[in-house]
C-alpha cells in the first residue's frame, strides 16, 4: 500500500459561520485543510506553502479575492494552484471576472449545496489516500 500525502486545501474565508461546515466536511473526507481569515494572510500562506487547492471567498479584509487571484496567477510559483471561488457575489460580472482571472470554478454560496462543492472537489482533486492500493 502506497501512502501518499492528502490533497492540501487552503480556505481563505473570513466568516466563521461559513468556515465551520466547510472545514468539517473537508476534514471528514481527509483533506489537509488550512484556514486563513484575511486576504493578505491567505496570499502569503499560499506563496510560502503552496497548497493544491484554494477555496477563495471574494469579499475579504485587507485584500479582496480578485486581487489575490491576480497575484497568484502572476507568480510562477503559485500559478498552478487550482483556485475555486466560493462567494456570496452572484452577479454575472463578478463571476466572469473571477473566471477570466484564472479561477477554475465559481460557486455562489446561496445557490450551492455544500455537497456539490464537496463532490466537485472529490471528483477533480481525488485524494490519493482514498485509493486502495
Amino acid at each position, binding site marked *: 500500500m502506497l501512502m501518499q500525502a492528502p490533497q492540501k486545501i487552503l480556505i481563505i474565508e473570513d466568516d466563521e459561520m*461559513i468556515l*465551520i*461546515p466547510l472545514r468539517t466536511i473537508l476534514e471528514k473526507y481527509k483533506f489537509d485543510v488550512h484556514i486563513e481569515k484575511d486576504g493578505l494572510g491567505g496570499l502569503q500562506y499560499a506563496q510560502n506553502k503552496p497548497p493544491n487547492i484554494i477555496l477563495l471567498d471574494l469579499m475579504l479584509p485587507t485584500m479582496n479575492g480578485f486581487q489575490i487571484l491576480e497575484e497568484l496567477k502572476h507568480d510562477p510559483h503559485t500559478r498552478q494552484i487550482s483556485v475555486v471561488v466560493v462567494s456570496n457575489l452572484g452577479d454575472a460580472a463578478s463571476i466572469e471576472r473571477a473566471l477570466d482571472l484564472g479561477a477554475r470554478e465559481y460557486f455562489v*454560496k446561496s445557490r450551492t449545496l*455544500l455537497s456539490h462543492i464537496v463532490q466537485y472537489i472529490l471528483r477533480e482533486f481525488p485524494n490519493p489516500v482514498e485509493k486502495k492500493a
Partner: protein
Amino acid sequence: MSLDFLFILVVFINASIGLGVFLHNPKHKVNQFFTAFVIFLDLWMVSNFLENEPGIVGEKNLGLFLRLDFVSAILAVYMLFRFCSNFVECIIESREFRKYRVALFLTVIFLVTCSLFTPFIFTDTSFFEGTVTFRNGILWPLYALILASLVGGGLTLLLRERLKPVFDEKSRMRHQQITFISLGVILSLSNAIFINFFQGFYPIDLEISRLGLYGMTFLVAFTAYAIIRHHLMDISIIIRLGAIYALLFATITFLYAYLASLVGLYTLGSLTYIIPSLVITFGFIPLKRLVETLTDRTFFRKKYSTETIIAELNSIIHKSGLNLDELLENFNRLIMNFIRVEHAVILLLNPQGEFVSHQPILANNRKLILGRDNSIVEHIYKYPESIIDKDHMVDVPHEKLIGELTQLGFALIMPIEVNRQIMGLYLITEKKSQDPFTDEEINLLRLIAAESGASIDNARLFNELKRVDEVKSKFISIISHQLRTPLTSIRWNLELLLNERFDKKERQELFHQSYQGALNMAKNLDDLFMALDIEEKGGTARLKKELVNFHELLGETVKEFESDLASKKLHLDISVPDKLPALALDKEKIIHVLAILLHNAIAYSNPVKEINVVGYTNTQDDGIPYFVCAVRDQGMGITPEDEKNIFSRFYRSEEAKKHSPNGYGLGLFVAKYFVGLHGGELWYTSHGPKKGATFSFSLPLEQK
C-alpha cells in the same frame, strides 16, 4: 452765441450724468459725492457765466454771482476730494478719522460763509470793460490753499491707488478707471485753476476765461469714458436716464412754448403763463412715464421687464419640471443673464436645519453649508423679508454680517420662501460690472425668488422621495446580501446533519452553528428594520426601563465577544468603579449599543492590541449627574472624511470596508438612536489615523 449754446449743453450733460449716477445707487457714497461734485460744478459754471452778464441778471447782481462762483468752486472741489477718497476706500473715510472730516467740512463751510458775507476772500467788486473784477481779500491765500490742497489731495489719493500693484482682474480694471479719472481731473482742474488764478494778474479775454471752466467737461467726459469703457457705473442705466431727461426737458420746453403762444392768441393776460404752467404741472408725471416708455421701446428693447422674467421662469419650470439639478442650474443662469452677475448659487434647507448647496462649490469639491448658528442664517430667520446686500447695508450693526458675506465671496443673499417657510437661499456674487445692485434688480430678484420657490420645493420633494426609494432599494439589496451568509451557514450545517454521519459532539456543534446562524439572521433583520424605522418615521421604538447593575450588563455583553477577542489575541481591559448606582435603562438596547461599540473596536483593531472599556459618573453644568461608558481601541482610527458620515446609515469608511467587508454600516446609526432615546449622547474622539478612536456614550442618572 455758439459758445452760449455750448455752455448750456455742457451744463445739461453734466447735470444728466450727475443725476443718472445718483439715481443709479442713491445710497452709495461714491455716487453721492460724484453727483454733489457735478452739481456744484454746474453751479460754478452757471454763476461764472452769469457774473459777467449784466444784460441777463442786472448790473447790481453781478457781485452776488461772483460770490456764488467762489462758493460753488470750493464746494465742488471738496466734493471731488470726497469722491476720490471714497472711491479709493481711503482710511480718511474710516470712523477714526471722523473728527478730521468734520474739521475739513467746517473749514470749507467757513470759507463759503466768508465768500458769501465778508470781504475777506475778495473785495472791491466792479464791472469793467465787460468783465467783473475784484481785489484779493485777506483770507484769499487760505482759500487758494484749501482749493489747491483738495484738488491735489484727491489727485494724490487716486494716483497712490494707481501705483498699488495689480493682483487680480478687479484691481487691474480699477487701475484703468483711476487712470481715466485722474487724467480728467488733471486736464480740467489745472486748466480751470490756471485761468482763475492768473486772470487777476493778466487780463484775459472773457470768452477764453470761460473756456477754462468749460474745461471741466474734460473730467466729466473722461469719467464718462471710464464708465463706458470699464463699467465704473452701469452705463446703460446712465444713458437711459440721460436720454429720458433730455427728452423730457425738450418736450416740456416745447409744450410750454407752444401752449403759451396758443393761449397768447386769445390774449388772456396773466393766464397766458398760468394755463400752460398748470398743464405742465399736472401733466409732468404722465409725461415722464410716456417718455420713459418711449425711450425704453426705442433704445432698450432688451431691458428686462416683469413679463419677460415671468415668461422665462415659466419656460424653465415647464422644461425642467422635477429635475432639481436642471431647475437650479436654469434659475441660476436666468439670474446670471438678467443681472449679469458672475455667479449665482442656491442653497437648500436640509432636515438638520442647515442650508446646503446642491452641488459642491467650494474648493476640494465640498458643498457650501450654512448652519443654524451662522449669523447670516440667524439674520434671515429674524427678518425673513429682508435681503442681505453688501452695498445696501453699509451701516455699523451689519458689519459682521457683511464681513461674513464677503468672506463667502458673495454680495447678496435672499431667502426663498414657500408658504411663508424659508426653504432655501439665493446667493449671488457681485455684478460683472462691480456695481451695487439697483432697486430694480432687487425687485427682479425678489420676483425670481418668489416664482421659483414652489417649483424648487416640488423638485426637492420629488428628489427626497427618490432618495427614500433609493434607501429602500439599498435596504433590500443589503437584506438579501446580509441574510445570505447566516442562511448559507444554516443550510450547510443542516445539510451535513442530514447527509453525513457524525459523532455526538460533532452533531452538537453543527446544531449549535445552525442555531447561531438563525440568531444572527434575526439580529440583522432587527437592525435593518430599526434603521428603516428611524429613517422613515424618525424612530418609533419605546424604552422598557428597569434598574440594571452595569457590571452585570457589561459582563453579559463581553461574554459574547470572548471568542472574537481570543482569535485576534486582543486584550480587553475593563475599568468601571465598583460602587455604581443601579442605572434605570432599557437593558436590551444598551446591551445592543455596547455590543456595537465592542464589535467595532474588535473588528477594526489589528491583532495583539488592547481595548479599554472605561465607566465613570460625572455631573453636568446644570447639576444633573450622568454616567459615561467609553470604549477605546488602538485600531484604524477615523479620517476627516469619515467624521461627517460616521453616524449615517449604510455609511462605511474605506478603511472599514478593508477591515471587515461584510458589515453594512448600520451599527452606529442605530446605537446613536438608542442612546438618544435614553436622553444621552453618543460621540467619538479620534486619536488620529491608525491610532485608534474612543467611542463614548452618556446616560443621565435618574434622581430619586
